Protein backbone atom coordinates (compact mmCIF):
# COMPACT_ATOMS: atom_id res chain seq x y z
CA UNK A 1 0.00 0.00 0.00
CA UNK A 2 2.51 2.51 1.18
CA UNK A 3 4.81 1.66 -1.68
CA UNK A 4 2.17 2.40 -4.30
CA UNK A 5 1.17 5.58 -2.56
CA UNK A 6 4.74 6.74 -2.48
CA UNK A 7 5.04 6.00 -6.12
CA UNK A 8 1.86 7.75 -7.24
CA UNK A 9 2.10 10.88 -5.18
CA UNK A 10 5.18 12.34 -6.86
CA UNK A 11 3.62 11.41 -10.21
CA UNK A 12 0.48 13.30 -9.34
CA UNK A 13 2.50 16.20 -8.06
CA UNK A 14 4.50 16.19 -11.22
CA UNK A 15 1.32 16.19 -13.26
CA UNK A 16 -0.18 19.01 -11.25
CA UNK A 17 2.99 21.03 -11.53
CA UNK A 18 3.14 20.34 -15.24
CA UNK A 19 -0.37 21.63 -15.69
CA UNK A 20 0.79 25.01 -14.43
CA UNK A 21 4.13 25.13 -16.22
CA UNK A 22 2.20 25.80 -19.42
CA UNK A 23 1.77 29.35 -18.26
CA UNK A 24 5.55 29.83 -18.44
CA UNK A 25 5.24 29.97 -22.23
CA UNK A 26 2.97 33.00 -22.07
CA UNK A 27 4.79 34.53 -19.10
CA UNK A 28 6.74 37.05 -21.20
CA UNK A 29 3.49 38.41 -22.59
CA UNK A 30 1.84 38.36 -19.14
CA UNK A 31 4.66 40.48 -17.74
CA UNK A 32 4.67 42.82 -20.72
CA UNK A 33 0.90 43.14 -20.61
CA UNK A 34 0.97 43.95 -16.90
CA UNK A 35 3.83 46.43 -16.87
CA UNK A 36 3.50 48.11 -20.25
CA UNK A 37 -0.27 48.00 -20.84
CA UNK A 38 -2.49 47.34 -17.80
CA UNK A 39 -0.50 49.22 -15.19
CA UNK A 40 -0.03 52.26 -17.45
CA UNK A 41 -3.81 52.45 -17.95
CA UNK A 42 -4.43 52.38 -14.22
CA UNK A 43 -1.59 54.80 -13.65
CA UNK A 44 -2.96 57.11 -16.32
CA UNK A 45 -6.27 57.29 -14.50
CA UNK A 46 -4.49 58.00 -11.22
CA UNK A 47 -2.22 60.76 -12.49
CA UNK A 48 -5.08 62.41 -14.36
CA UNK A 49 -6.30 63.39 -10.87
CA UNK A 50 -3.03 65.14 -10.04
CA UNK A 51 -1.29 68.33 -10.95
CA UNK A 52 1.75 66.36 -12.04
CA UNK A 53 4.78 68.09 -13.49
CA UNK A 54 8.29 66.76 -13.91
CA UNK A 55 9.66 69.71 -11.96
CA UNK A 56 7.33 70.01 -9.00
CA UNK A 57 5.97 67.75 -6.29
CA UNK A 58 2.67 66.29 -7.56
CA UNK A 59 -0.52 67.55 -6.00
CA UNK A 60 -3.96 65.89 -5.84
CA UNK A 61 -6.59 68.05 -7.51
CA UNK A 62 -9.47 65.58 -8.00
CA UNK A 63 -11.27 66.24 -11.26
CA UNK A 64 -9.51 69.57 -11.68
CA UNK A 65 -7.82 68.56 -14.91
CA UNK A 66 -11.11 67.37 -16.37
CA UNK A 67 -12.86 70.56 -15.31
CA UNK A 68 -10.09 72.56 -16.94
CA UNK A 69 -10.24 70.72 -20.25
CA UNK A 70 -14.02 70.86 -20.41
CA UNK A 71 -14.54 74.47 -19.38
CA UNK A 72 -11.26 76.27 -19.72
CA UNK A 73 -9.36 74.88 -22.68
CA UNK A 74 -10.42 76.01 -26.14
CA UNK A 75 -7.62 73.92 -27.62
CA UNK A 76 -9.27 70.77 -26.23
CA UNK A 77 -12.56 71.47 -27.99
CA UNK A 78 -10.69 72.44 -31.14
CA UNK A 79 -8.76 69.16 -31.00
CA UNK A 80 -11.97 67.14 -30.52
CA UNK A 81 -13.49 68.88 -33.54
CA UNK A 82 -10.39 68.34 -35.65
CA UNK A 83 -10.00 64.70 -34.62
CA UNK A 84 -13.63 63.81 -35.35
CA UNK A 85 -13.45 65.57 -38.71
CA UNK A 86 -10.23 63.76 -39.49
CA UNK A 87 -11.68 60.33 -38.65
CA UNK A 88 -14.76 61.18 -40.70
CA UNK A 89 -12.70 62.26 -43.73
CA UNK A 90 -10.29 59.37 -43.54
CA UNK A 91 -11.85 56.10 -42.40
CA UNK A 92 -14.84 55.77 -44.77
CA UNK A 93 -12.79 56.87 -47.80
CA UNK A 94 -10.07 54.42 -46.98
CA UNK A 95 -12.49 51.51 -46.58
CA UNK A 96 -14.55 52.35 -49.68
CA UNK A 97 -11.45 52.80 -51.76
CA UNK A 98 -9.95 49.54 -50.51
CA UNK A 99 -13.21 47.72 -51.23
CA UNK A 100 -13.63 49.06 -54.75
CA UNK A 101 -10.05 48.45 -55.81
CA UNK A 102 -10.07 44.96 -54.29
CA UNK A 103 -13.24 44.11 -56.21
CA UNK A 104 -11.79 45.35 -59.49
CA UNK A 105 -8.47 43.66 -58.82
CA UNK A 106 -10.21 40.39 -58.02
CA UNK A 107 -11.78 40.36 -61.50
CA UNK A 108 -8.58 41.02 -63.41
CA UNK A 109 -6.37 38.13 -64.23
CA UNK A 110 -3.28 39.82 -65.58
CA UNK A 111 -0.87 41.86 -63.50
CA UNK A 112 -2.71 41.45 -60.22
CA UNK A 113 0.58 40.86 -58.39
CA UNK A 114 2.15 44.10 -59.62
CA UNK A 115 -0.93 46.21 -58.83
CA UNK A 116 -1.13 44.67 -55.39
CA UNK A 117 2.49 45.59 -54.64
CA UNK A 118 2.01 49.16 -55.90
CA UNK A 119 -1.18 49.74 -53.93
CA UNK A 120 0.07 48.08 -50.79
CA UNK A 121 3.48 49.81 -50.49
CA UNK A 122 2.18 53.19 -49.24
CA UNK A 123 0.42 51.64 -46.26
CA UNK A 124 3.70 50.15 -45.06
CA UNK A 125 5.93 53.19 -45.44
CA UNK A 126 3.32 55.95 -45.23
CA UNK A 127 3.67 56.54 -41.50
CA UNK A 128 7.34 57.47 -41.74
CA UNK A 129 8.80 60.91 -41.25
CA UNK A 130 10.19 60.79 -44.81
CA UNK A 131 6.73 60.45 -46.35
CA UNK A 132 5.40 63.35 -44.26
CA UNK A 133 8.23 65.51 -45.62
CA UNK A 134 7.45 64.40 -49.17
CA UNK A 135 3.80 65.33 -48.64
CA UNK A 136 4.91 68.78 -47.59
CA UNK A 137 6.99 69.09 -50.74
CA UNK A 138 4.42 67.87 -53.26
CA UNK A 139 1.64 70.01 -51.76
CA UNK A 140 3.88 73.08 -51.52
CA UNK A 141 2.59 76.24 -53.19
CA UNK A 142 5.01 75.62 -56.04
CA UNK A 143 4.90 71.86 -55.65
CA UNK A 144 4.15 69.21 -58.19
CA UNK A 145 0.42 69.01 -57.38
CA UNK A 146 -0.13 72.67 -58.20
CA UNK A 147 2.06 72.28 -61.26
CA UNK A 148 -0.10 69.43 -62.55
CA UNK A 149 -3.27 71.36 -61.72
CA UNK A 150 -2.03 74.62 -63.25
CA UNK A 151 -4.03 74.01 -66.43
CA UNK A 152 -7.25 73.60 -64.47
CA UNK A 153 -6.87 76.02 -61.55
CA UNK A 154 -5.03 79.27 -62.18
CA UNK A 155 -4.51 80.60 -58.68
CA UNK A 156 -2.29 78.16 -56.82
CA UNK A 157 -4.04 76.88 -53.68
CA UNK A 158 -1.95 76.75 -50.50
CA UNK A 159 -2.89 73.17 -49.67
CA UNK A 160 -1.15 72.97 -46.33
CA UNK A 161 -1.33 76.69 -45.56
CA UNK A 162 -5.07 77.14 -45.91
CA UNK A 163 -7.15 76.35 -42.78
CA UNK A 164 -9.88 74.81 -44.92
CA UNK A 165 -7.60 72.62 -47.04
CA UNK A 166 -4.89 71.60 -44.57
CA UNK A 167 -6.73 68.80 -42.76
CA UNK A 168 -8.16 67.24 -45.95
CA UNK A 169 -4.66 67.32 -47.47
CA UNK A 170 -3.30 65.39 -44.49
CA UNK A 171 -6.28 63.07 -44.66
CA UNK A 172 -5.29 62.39 -48.26
CA UNK A 173 -1.94 61.13 -47.00
CA UNK A 174 -3.80 58.48 -44.98
CA UNK A 175 -6.32 57.61 -47.69
CA UNK A 176 -3.31 57.01 -49.93
CA UNK A 177 -2.50 54.17 -47.50
CA UNK A 178 -5.65 52.13 -48.19
CA UNK A 179 -3.53 49.15 -49.28
CA UNK A 180 -3.52 47.00 -46.16
CA UNK A 181 -7.33 46.95 -45.99
CA UNK A 182 -7.37 46.20 -49.70
CA UNK A 183 -5.13 43.16 -49.24
CA UNK A 184 -7.43 41.85 -46.49
CA UNK A 185 -10.53 42.38 -48.65
CA UNK A 186 -8.83 40.75 -51.61
CA UNK A 187 -8.13 37.65 -49.55
CA UNK A 188 -11.76 37.66 -48.39
CA UNK A 189 -13.04 37.95 -51.95
CA UNK A 190 -11.10 34.85 -52.94
CA UNK A 191 -13.17 32.84 -50.46
CA UNK A 192 -16.56 33.73 -51.93
CA UNK A 193 -17.79 30.73 -53.97
CA UNK A 194 -17.85 31.61 -57.70
CA UNK A 195 -21.08 29.67 -58.18
CA UNK A 196 -23.01 32.31 -56.25
CA UNK A 197 -22.08 34.90 -58.85
CA UNK A 198 -22.86 32.52 -61.71
CA UNK A 199 -26.31 31.71 -60.31
CA UNK A 200 -26.98 35.41 -59.83
CA UNK A 201 -25.89 36.13 -63.41
CA UNK A 202 -28.30 33.49 -64.71
CA UNK A 203 -31.03 35.22 -62.73
CA UNK A 204 -30.15 38.38 -64.61
CA UNK A 205 -28.42 40.23 -61.77
CA UNK A 206 -26.19 43.14 -62.84
CA UNK A 207 -22.74 44.07 -61.52
CA UNK A 208 -24.15 46.39 -58.86
CA UNK A 209 -26.75 43.91 -57.62
CA UNK A 210 -24.10 41.23 -57.29
CA UNK A 211 -21.82 43.66 -55.46
CA UNK A 212 -24.45 44.63 -52.91
CA UNK A 213 -26.21 41.26 -52.60
CA UNK A 214 -23.22 38.90 -52.63
CA UNK A 215 -19.89 40.70 -52.18
CA UNK A 216 -20.80 43.10 -49.38
CA UNK A 217 -22.63 40.52 -47.20
CA UNK A 218 -19.76 38.06 -47.51
CA UNK A 219 -17.15 40.67 -46.69
CA UNK A 220 -19.16 42.29 -43.91
CA UNK A 221 -17.21 40.70 -41.02
CA UNK A 222 -13.98 41.92 -42.60
CA UNK A 223 -15.40 45.37 -43.30
CA UNK A 224 -16.49 45.64 -39.69
CA UNK A 225 -13.09 44.54 -38.41
CA UNK A 226 -11.29 47.01 -40.68
CA UNK A 227 -13.52 49.96 -39.83
CA UNK A 228 -12.91 49.28 -36.15
CA UNK A 229 -9.12 48.96 -36.38
CA UNK A 230 -8.74 51.93 -38.74
CA UNK A 231 -10.92 54.07 -36.51
CA UNK A 232 -8.77 53.30 -33.47
CA UNK A 233 -5.55 54.08 -35.37
CA UNK A 234 -6.81 57.29 -36.98
CA UNK A 235 -8.15 58.69 -33.69
CA UNK A 236 -4.57 58.63 -32.35
CA UNK A 237 -2.81 59.93 -35.46
CA UNK A 238 0.16 62.16 -34.77
CA UNK A 239 3.15 61.95 -37.11
CA UNK A 240 1.95 63.70 -40.30
CA UNK A 241 0.90 67.12 -38.99
CA UNK A 242 3.60 67.09 -36.30
CA UNK A 243 6.36 66.69 -38.89
CA UNK A 244 4.77 68.87 -41.57
CA UNK A 245 4.13 71.80 -39.22
CA UNK A 246 7.26 71.24 -37.16
CA UNK A 247 5.45 70.67 -33.87
CA UNK A 248 2.77 73.29 -34.58
CA UNK A 249 -0.82 72.47 -35.47
CA UNK A 250 -1.23 74.01 -38.91
CA UNK A 251 -2.92 77.24 -40.01
CA UNK A 252 -5.38 78.49 -37.35
CA UNK A 253 -4.87 75.22 -35.43
CA UNK A 254 -6.79 73.45 -38.18
CA UNK A 255 -4.68 70.30 -37.75
CA UNK A 256 -4.66 70.21 -33.95
CA UNK A 257 -5.36 66.51 -33.56
CA UNK A 258 -5.97 65.22 -30.05
CA UNK A 259 -2.74 63.23 -30.28
CA UNK A 260 -0.82 66.47 -30.85
CA UNK A 261 -2.60 68.29 -28.02
CA UNK A 262 -1.71 65.43 -25.66
CA UNK A 263 1.93 65.50 -26.75
CA UNK A 264 2.19 69.26 -26.34
CA UNK A 265 0.57 69.27 -22.90
CA UNK A 266 2.72 66.46 -21.57
CA UNK A 267 6.06 66.99 -23.29
CA UNK A 268 6.21 70.67 -24.24
CA UNK A 269 4.47 72.10 -21.20
CA UNK A 270 5.44 69.17 -18.96
CA UNK A 271 1.90 68.83 -17.58
CA UNK A 272 1.78 65.05 -17.28
CA UNK A 273 -1.45 64.99 -15.25
CA UNK A 274 -3.28 67.20 -17.70
CA UNK A 275 -1.95 65.18 -20.63
CA UNK A 276 -3.24 62.01 -18.96
CA UNK A 277 -6.67 63.56 -18.51
CA UNK A 278 -6.66 64.40 -22.22
CA UNK A 279 -5.62 60.88 -23.16
CA UNK A 280 -8.40 59.44 -21.02
CA UNK A 281 -10.85 61.59 -22.97
CA UNK A 282 -9.33 60.08 -26.13
CA UNK A 283 -9.86 56.60 -24.67
CA UNK A 284 -13.47 57.40 -23.79
CA UNK A 285 -14.15 58.65 -27.30
CA UNK A 286 -12.60 55.58 -28.90
CA UNK A 287 -14.55 53.41 -26.45
CA UNK A 288 -17.86 55.05 -27.33
CA UNK A 289 -17.28 54.71 -31.05
CA UNK A 290 -16.19 51.08 -30.55
CA UNK A 291 -19.45 50.29 -28.72
CA UNK A 292 -21.38 51.99 -31.49
CA UNK A 293 -19.58 49.96 -34.16
CA UNK A 294 -20.25 46.71 -32.27
CA UNK A 295 -23.95 47.63 -32.06
CA UNK A 296 -24.09 48.22 -35.80
CA UNK A 297 -22.21 44.97 -36.34
CA UNK A 298 -24.83 42.94 -34.45
CA UNK A 299 -27.55 44.28 -36.70
CA UNK A 300 -25.80 44.16 -40.03
CA UNK A 301 -22.91 41.75 -40.20
CA UNK A 302 -23.56 38.49 -41.96
CA UNK A 303 -21.67 35.46 -40.74
CA UNK A 304 -22.33 32.89 -43.44
Amino acid sequence: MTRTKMRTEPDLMKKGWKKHTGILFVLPWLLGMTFFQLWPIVHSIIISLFDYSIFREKEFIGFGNFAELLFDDDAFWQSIKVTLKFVFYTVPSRIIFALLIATILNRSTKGIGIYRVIYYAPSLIGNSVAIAIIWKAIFDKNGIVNLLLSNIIHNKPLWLGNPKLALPTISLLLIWQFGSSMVIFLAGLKQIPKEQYEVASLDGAGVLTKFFKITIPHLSPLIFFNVLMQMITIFQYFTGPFVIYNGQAGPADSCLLLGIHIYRSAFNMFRLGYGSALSIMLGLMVGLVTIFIFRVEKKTVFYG
Partner: protein
Amino acid sequence: MDSATRFNKYHHIYLTLIGVIMVYPILWMVIASLTPSHEIFLTGRFLPSTIQWSNYTEALSAKANYSLLDFLLNTFILEFFVISGTIISTSLVGFGFARVPFPFKKILFTILIGSLLLPQTITLIPRYILFSKLKWINSYLPFVIPSFLASGIGGTFFIFLVNQFIRSIPLELDDSAMIDGCSRFQIYLKIILPLSKTVLITVALFSFIWTWDDFQNQLIFINDVAKFTISLGLRMTIDTTELMSWGPILAACSIALLPSLSVFLMAQKYFVEGIATTGIKR
Protein backbone atom coordinates in the same frame (compact mmCIF):
# COMPACT_ATOMS: atom_id res chain seq x y z
CA MET B 1 -14.34 41.57 -78.34
CA ASP B 2 -16.72 40.03 -75.81
CA SER B 3 -17.98 42.02 -72.85
CA ALA B 4 -15.72 40.31 -70.32
CA THR B 5 -12.49 41.25 -72.07
CA ARG B 6 -13.77 44.75 -72.67
CA PHE B 7 -14.57 44.99 -69.00
CA ASN B 8 -11.08 43.82 -68.19
CA LYS B 9 -9.51 46.30 -70.56
CA TYR B 10 -11.29 49.28 -69.02
CA HIS B 11 -10.35 48.08 -65.60
CA HIS B 12 -6.71 47.88 -66.51
CA ILE B 13 -6.88 51.52 -67.53
CA TYR B 14 -8.29 52.55 -64.14
CA LEU B 15 -5.91 50.31 -62.27
CA THR B 16 -2.89 51.71 -64.10
CA LEU B 17 -4.06 55.27 -63.62
CA ILE B 18 -4.53 54.79 -59.88
CA GLY B 19 -1.24 52.91 -59.76
CA VAL B 20 0.55 55.93 -61.25
CA ILE B 21 -0.98 58.19 -58.58
CA MET B 22 0.07 55.69 -55.89
CA VAL B 23 3.74 55.55 -56.90
CA TYR B 24 4.02 59.14 -58.02
CA PRO B 25 5.01 60.66 -54.64
CA ILE B 26 7.85 58.16 -54.28
CA LEU B 27 8.92 58.42 -57.90
CA TRP B 28 8.88 62.20 -57.67
CA MET B 29 10.99 62.08 -54.52
CA VAL B 30 13.68 59.99 -56.20
CA ILE B 31 13.79 62.19 -59.30
CA ALA B 32 13.70 65.44 -57.31
CA SER B 33 16.48 64.17 -55.06
CA LEU B 34 18.70 64.08 -58.15
CA THR B 35 17.61 67.50 -59.39
CA PRO B 36 19.41 70.80 -58.68
CA SER B 37 17.41 72.46 -55.88
CA HIS B 38 16.52 75.58 -57.83
CA GLU B 39 14.98 73.44 -60.56
CA ILE B 40 12.75 71.23 -58.38
CA PHE B 41 9.78 73.55 -58.12
CA LEU B 42 10.34 75.64 -61.20
CA THR B 43 10.11 73.59 -64.29
CA GLY B 44 7.32 71.52 -65.68
CA ARG B 45 9.84 69.00 -66.89
CA PHE B 46 9.83 65.45 -65.60
CA LEU B 47 13.57 64.81 -65.62
CA PRO B 48 16.31 67.17 -64.38
CA SER B 49 18.61 69.00 -66.79
CA THR B 50 21.62 67.56 -65.00
CA ILE B 51 21.84 64.83 -62.40
CA GLN B 52 22.81 66.44 -59.11
CA TRP B 53 24.62 63.78 -57.08
CA SER B 54 25.83 66.44 -54.68
CA ASN B 55 22.38 66.44 -53.07
CA TYR B 56 23.28 63.03 -51.68
CA THR B 57 26.75 63.97 -50.51
CA GLU B 58 25.28 67.02 -48.80
CA ALA B 59 22.52 64.95 -47.19
CA LEU B 60 25.10 62.51 -45.84
CA SER B 61 27.52 65.15 -44.59
CA ALA B 62 27.72 65.63 -40.86
CA LYS B 63 25.67 68.30 -39.14
CA ALA B 64 26.27 69.05 -35.47
CA ASN B 65 28.78 66.18 -35.31
CA TYR B 66 26.32 63.55 -36.51
CA SER B 67 25.36 62.45 -39.99
CA LEU B 68 22.53 60.44 -41.44
CA LEU B 69 24.87 57.46 -41.48
CA ASP B 70 25.12 57.55 -37.68
CA PHE B 71 21.34 57.58 -37.41
CA LEU B 72 21.08 54.70 -39.88
CA LEU B 73 23.57 52.70 -37.85
CA ASN B 74 21.68 53.47 -34.63
CA THR B 75 18.44 52.32 -36.19
CA PHE B 76 19.98 49.06 -37.38
CA ILE B 77 21.32 48.38 -33.86
CA LEU B 78 17.89 49.07 -32.39
CA GLU B 79 16.27 46.88 -35.05
CA PHE B 80 18.59 43.98 -34.31
CA PHE B 81 17.58 43.81 -30.64
CA VAL B 82 13.91 44.56 -31.22
CA ILE B 83 13.55 41.93 -33.95
CA SER B 84 15.40 39.27 -31.92
CA GLY B 85 13.25 39.96 -28.88
CA THR B 86 10.05 39.97 -30.90
CA ILE B 87 10.80 36.65 -32.59
CA ILE B 88 11.76 34.88 -29.38
CA SER B 89 8.87 36.18 -27.30
CA THR B 90 6.04 36.02 -29.82
CA SER B 91 6.96 32.50 -30.91
CA LEU B 92 6.95 31.31 -27.29
CA VAL B 93 3.66 33.02 -26.47
CA GLY B 94 2.04 32.04 -29.77
CA PHE B 95 3.06 28.43 -29.12
CA GLY B 96 1.71 28.63 -25.57
CA PHE B 97 -1.70 29.83 -26.70
CA ALA B 98 -1.87 27.40 -29.62
CA ARG B 99 -0.63 24.20 -28.01
CA VAL B 100 -0.17 24.22 -24.23
CA PRO B 101 -2.98 23.93 -21.66
CA PHE B 102 -2.72 26.24 -18.66
CA PRO B 103 -5.10 27.80 -16.13
CA PHE B 104 -7.15 30.89 -17.17
CA LYS B 105 -6.16 30.37 -20.80
CA LYS B 106 -9.53 31.50 -22.18
CA ILE B 107 -9.62 34.67 -20.11
CA LEU B 108 -6.04 35.51 -21.01
CA PHE B 109 -6.74 35.00 -24.70
CA THR B 110 -9.71 37.33 -24.41
CA ILE B 111 -7.47 39.95 -22.79
CA LEU B 112 -5.02 39.46 -25.65
CA ILE B 113 -7.77 40.14 -28.20
CA GLY B 114 -9.06 43.06 -26.15
CA SER B 115 -5.63 44.68 -26.03
CA LEU B 116 -5.81 45.05 -29.82
CA LEU B 117 -8.53 47.62 -29.25
CA LEU B 118 -6.57 49.60 -26.69
CA PRO B 119 -5.44 53.02 -27.94
CA GLN B 120 -1.72 53.12 -27.23
CA THR B 121 -1.80 56.88 -26.70
CA ILE B 122 -3.36 56.31 -23.27
CA THR B 123 -0.26 54.44 -22.11
CA LEU B 124 2.22 56.96 -23.51
CA ILE B 125 2.58 59.27 -20.50
CA PRO B 126 2.63 56.52 -17.83
CA ARG B 127 5.20 54.60 -19.88
CA TYR B 128 7.31 57.75 -20.04
CA ILE B 129 7.10 58.08 -16.22
CA LEU B 130 7.89 54.38 -15.77
CA PHE B 131 10.88 54.50 -18.11
CA SER B 132 12.26 57.65 -16.56
CA LYS B 133 12.01 56.09 -13.07
CA LEU B 134 13.87 53.05 -14.40
CA LYS B 135 16.45 55.42 -15.97
CA TRP B 136 15.71 53.96 -19.41
CA ILE B 137 15.11 57.31 -21.13
CA ASN B 138 17.78 58.03 -23.73
CA SER B 139 18.51 54.36 -24.18
CA TYR B 140 16.94 51.72 -26.42
CA LEU B 141 15.56 49.78 -23.45
CA PRO B 142 12.02 51.26 -23.79
CA PHE B 143 11.90 49.47 -27.16
CA VAL B 144 14.03 46.39 -26.53
CA ILE B 145 12.60 45.19 -23.20
CA PRO B 146 8.94 45.35 -24.32
CA SER B 147 9.87 43.49 -27.50
CA PHE B 148 11.34 40.65 -25.41
CA LEU B 149 8.04 40.62 -23.49
CA ALA B 150 5.91 40.37 -26.65
CA SER B 151 4.52 43.84 -26.04
CA GLY B 152 6.55 46.05 -28.35
CA ILE B 153 5.14 47.58 -31.52
CA GLY B 154 2.79 45.06 -33.14
CA GLY B 155 3.31 42.51 -30.34
CA THR B 156 -0.31 41.42 -30.08
CA PHE B 157 -0.64 41.18 -33.86
CA PHE B 158 2.45 38.96 -34.00
CA ILE B 159 1.20 36.64 -31.24
CA PHE B 160 -1.99 36.22 -33.27
CA LEU B 161 -0.11 35.55 -36.44
CA VAL B 162 2.14 32.89 -34.86
CA ASN B 163 -0.80 31.36 -32.99
CA GLN B 164 -2.79 30.98 -36.22
CA PHE B 165 0.16 29.45 -37.99
CA ILE B 166 0.98 26.92 -35.27
CA ARG B 167 -2.65 25.81 -35.14
CA SER B 168 -2.32 24.73 -38.75
CA ILE B 169 0.57 22.35 -37.91
CA PRO B 170 -0.79 18.78 -37.36
CA LEU B 171 -1.13 17.88 -33.68
CA GLU B 172 0.11 14.34 -34.39
CA LEU B 173 3.64 15.72 -34.60
CA ASP B 174 3.42 16.88 -30.99
CA ASP B 175 1.79 13.63 -29.87
CA SER B 176 4.45 11.39 -31.32
CA ALA B 177 7.20 13.59 -29.93
CA MET B 178 5.57 13.40 -26.50
CA ILE B 179 5.47 9.62 -26.70
CA ASP B 180 9.19 9.78 -27.47
CA GLY B 181 9.56 11.65 -24.19
CA CYS B 182 9.95 15.20 -25.42
CA SER B 183 8.94 17.97 -23.03
CA ARG B 184 6.72 20.83 -24.17
CA PHE B 185 9.74 23.07 -24.47
CA GLN B 186 11.58 20.51 -26.59
CA ILE B 187 8.52 20.24 -28.86
CA TYR B 188 8.58 24.02 -29.24
CA LEU B 189 12.30 24.11 -29.91
CA LYS B 190 12.78 21.03 -32.09
CA ILE B 191 9.47 20.63 -33.92
CA ILE B 192 7.39 23.78 -33.99
CA LEU B 193 10.12 26.42 -34.39
CA PRO B 194 11.72 24.85 -37.48
CA LEU B 195 8.27 24.44 -39.06
CA SER B 196 7.34 28.04 -38.29
CA LYS B 197 10.12 29.62 -40.28
CA THR B 198 7.80 31.38 -42.73
CA VAL B 199 5.63 32.98 -40.08
CA LEU B 200 8.67 34.08 -38.07
CA ILE B 201 10.17 35.70 -41.17
CA THR B 202 6.86 37.54 -41.57
CA VAL B 203 7.04 38.69 -37.96
CA ALA B 204 10.63 39.87 -38.42
CA LEU B 205 9.76 41.79 -41.58
CA PHE B 206 6.76 43.59 -40.10
CA SER B 207 8.70 44.32 -36.95
CA PHE B 208 11.53 45.78 -39.02
CA ILE B 209 9.27 48.14 -40.98
CA TRP B 210 7.14 49.26 -38.04
CA THR B 211 10.18 50.04 -35.91
CA TRP B 212 11.79 51.79 -38.86
CA ASP B 213 8.69 53.98 -39.31
CA ASP B 214 7.96 54.59 -35.65
CA PHE B 215 8.27 58.23 -34.70
CA GLN B 216 6.18 59.17 -31.66
CA ASN B 217 7.72 56.67 -29.21
CA GLN B 218 11.23 57.47 -30.36
CA LEU B 219 10.52 61.18 -30.09
CA ILE B 220 9.48 60.81 -26.47
CA PHE B 221 11.97 58.23 -25.22
CA ILE B 222 15.16 59.37 -27.00
CA ASN B 223 16.42 62.94 -26.57
CA ASP B 224 20.15 62.53 -27.04
CA VAL B 225 21.26 63.23 -30.62
CA ALA B 226 23.97 60.59 -30.31
CA LYS B 227 21.23 57.95 -29.97
CA PHE B 228 18.87 59.38 -32.60
CA THR B 229 17.20 56.95 -35.00
CA ILE B 230 16.62 57.72 -38.65
CA SER B 231 13.11 59.12 -37.95
CA LEU B 232 14.45 61.55 -35.36
CA GLY B 233 17.56 62.34 -37.37
CA LEU B 234 15.58 63.08 -40.49
CA ARG B 235 13.26 65.40 -38.63
CA MET B 236 16.22 67.18 -37.05
CA THR B 237 17.78 67.64 -40.48
CA ILE B 238 14.77 69.51 -41.82
CA ASP B 239 14.25 71.46 -38.62
CA THR B 240 17.70 72.77 -37.84
CA THR B 241 18.56 73.78 -41.37
CA GLU B 242 15.90 76.24 -42.39
CA LEU B 243 18.17 77.36 -45.17
CA MET B 244 18.80 73.88 -46.45
CA SER B 245 17.28 73.44 -49.85
CA TRP B 246 14.85 70.76 -51.00
CA GLY B 247 17.39 68.81 -53.05
CA PRO B 248 19.41 67.48 -50.09
CA ILE B 249 16.26 67.10 -47.96
CA LEU B 250 14.68 64.83 -50.55
CA ALA B 251 17.96 62.95 -50.92
CA ALA B 252 17.86 62.35 -47.15
CA CYS B 253 14.26 61.13 -47.44
CA SER B 254 15.25 58.74 -50.22
CA ILE B 255 18.06 57.35 -48.09
CA ALA B 256 15.70 56.96 -45.12
CA LEU B 257 13.11 55.12 -47.20
CA LEU B 258 15.53 52.87 -49.07
CA PRO B 259 15.86 50.12 -46.40
CA SER B 260 12.14 49.74 -45.68
CA LEU B 261 11.11 50.04 -49.30
CA SER B 262 13.64 47.48 -50.50
CA VAL B 263 12.74 45.06 -47.70
CA PHE B 264 9.10 45.37 -48.77
CA LEU B 265 9.83 44.87 -52.46
CA MET B 266 12.05 41.85 -51.87
CA ALA B 267 9.67 40.16 -49.47
CA GLN B 268 6.24 41.47 -50.52
CA LYS B 269 4.74 37.95 -50.50
CA TYR B 270 5.32 37.63 -46.76
CA PHE B 271 3.70 41.01 -46.12
CA VAL B 272 0.67 40.25 -48.26
CA GLU B 273 0.10 36.83 -46.72
CA GLY B 274 0.78 38.06 -43.19
CA ILE B 275 -1.79 40.82 -43.33
CA ALA B 276 -4.33 38.70 -45.21
CA THR B 277 -4.43 35.79 -42.75
CA THR B 278 -4.95 37.86 -39.61
CA GLY B 279 -7.65 39.82 -41.36
CA ILE B 280 -9.54 36.70 -42.30
CA LYS B 281 -9.24 34.44 -39.31
CA ARG B 282 -9.77 36.78 -36.49
